[in-house]
């Protein structure tokens, strides 16, 4: 069945969640990603729900990899950087494509980091690396826990380097985090996956 084939091949995906204070970190990561990176990177960033696409354009200036807002039912391709669109949850389907959902906010957030992390874990299993960045929100920790329980890797921005340490600190306090990374270490970490 299609849903097993993904985990059989052990396809990989990186999911990154950030809230307040994480945009600069994301721009730094993008600047130092390998131009020949061959896994997809999905970014969930809390932001005001004005649905203009200037954020993905801003991000696109930092890397030669293709950067775009994820579209509904779009196939997830290696080496592409996807940004969750404002005001929708971004879900990952078992046969390797995105779907969107405009259901209720979770932890006051849409997109919710937890939703993308959880569906990524259910679709990609041990192939998932989840990274949680700076933020003042409770979002993301439950998602990391699910990634971990389905054998994925979980990494957290070192709260000491975070502009708003609450979110990563919450993760460190409640989960057996695999990697605690400074801002400078994150791109190299992704490049070696």
């Amino acid at each position, binding site marked *: 069945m299609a849903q097993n084939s993904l985990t059989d091949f052990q396809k990989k995906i990186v999911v990154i969640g950030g809230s307040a204070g994480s945009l600069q970190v994301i721009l730094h990561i993008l600047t130092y990603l390998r131009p020949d990176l061959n896994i997809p990177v999905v970014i969930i960033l809390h932001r005001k729900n004005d649905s203009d696409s200037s954020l993905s354009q801003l991000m696109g200036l930092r890397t030669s990899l293709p950067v775009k807002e994820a579209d*509904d039912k779009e196939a997830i391709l290696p080496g592409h950087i996807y940004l969750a669109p404002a005001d929708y949850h971004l*879900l990952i389907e*078992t046969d390797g494509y995105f*779907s*969107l*959902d405009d259901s209720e906010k979770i932890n006051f957030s849409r997109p919710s980091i937890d939703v993308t992390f959880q569906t990524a874990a*259910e679709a990609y299993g041990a192939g998932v690396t989840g990274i949680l960045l700076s933020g003042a929100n409770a979002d993301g920790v439950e998602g990391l826990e699910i990634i971990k*329980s389905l054998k994925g890797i979980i990494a957290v921005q070192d709260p000491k380097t975070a502009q708003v340490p609450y979110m990563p600190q919450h993760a460190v306090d409640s989960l057996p985090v695999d990697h605690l990374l400074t801002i400078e270490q994150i791109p190299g970490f992704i490049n070696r996956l």
Partner: protein
Amino acid sequence: MDTPVGEQEIKLLLNDLIELYGYDFTDYAKASLKRRINRLFTLDRFPSFAEFRYRLCNDADYAKRFVEQLTVNVTEMFRDPKFYQNLREHVLPVLATYPFIRIWHAGCSTGEEVFSMAILLKEANLLHKSLLYATDLNSQVLQKATTGIFPMSQMKQYSENYIAAGGKEDFSRYYTASYNVVKFDEELSQRMVFSTHNLVSESSFNQFQLIMCRNVLIYFEKELQGRVFALFDDSLENLGFLALGSKETLKLSPIISKYRQEGKEKIWRKIH
């Protein structure tokens, strides 16, 4: 830590739903459906999957609740103001040339979208010759839509949306407030017809010059999206408009060859 209701169990529930109640959710996007079903399972505090399934199969009222809870009914007035501005400036002038205007709101939820459209039509002096057919699978939301009563707490946001969509009037002239709700003018609802209609299983019922189906197709798998696009194509007059949600597209469907996208918003015109 897996979800209490897994993929296999979901298959069982969806089969029960078809066989016993005639609702077919099998071609809905799986990740979202799984979240909705697990949410309901937790919300209603079932001790086990077996009890969940038993209740669904043996209690028709619960089956109704199940369907209502699976669907996502989030909506607002003048959602994506730029989209409505585009309708006002580019689509309504074309509709104005028809002696009689028929519009279909497929998946209208609690009606905010339909009232927004009625306001646009009224301001373009077209409402008197328009009919808005508003349908949804979920009869509970339709009931709400029929009343034209919405929470007062939303009006600040809606009025901002209205202005951002190019509205020039005082938004509050369209409703009467009492306590914590407002009721929109009968003049608007007089031109609306509400009815249940399931896009998965029911066929075309009229010919329209504009079909709005926003934030419904994201819940469907690609193949079902394709079938629904064919249904819309059947229901749209030549040179009619099809309007989708801001993240939905006709691009992946074979009918695209008969359509041309109008501007940057998700509005397509049938040109063949």
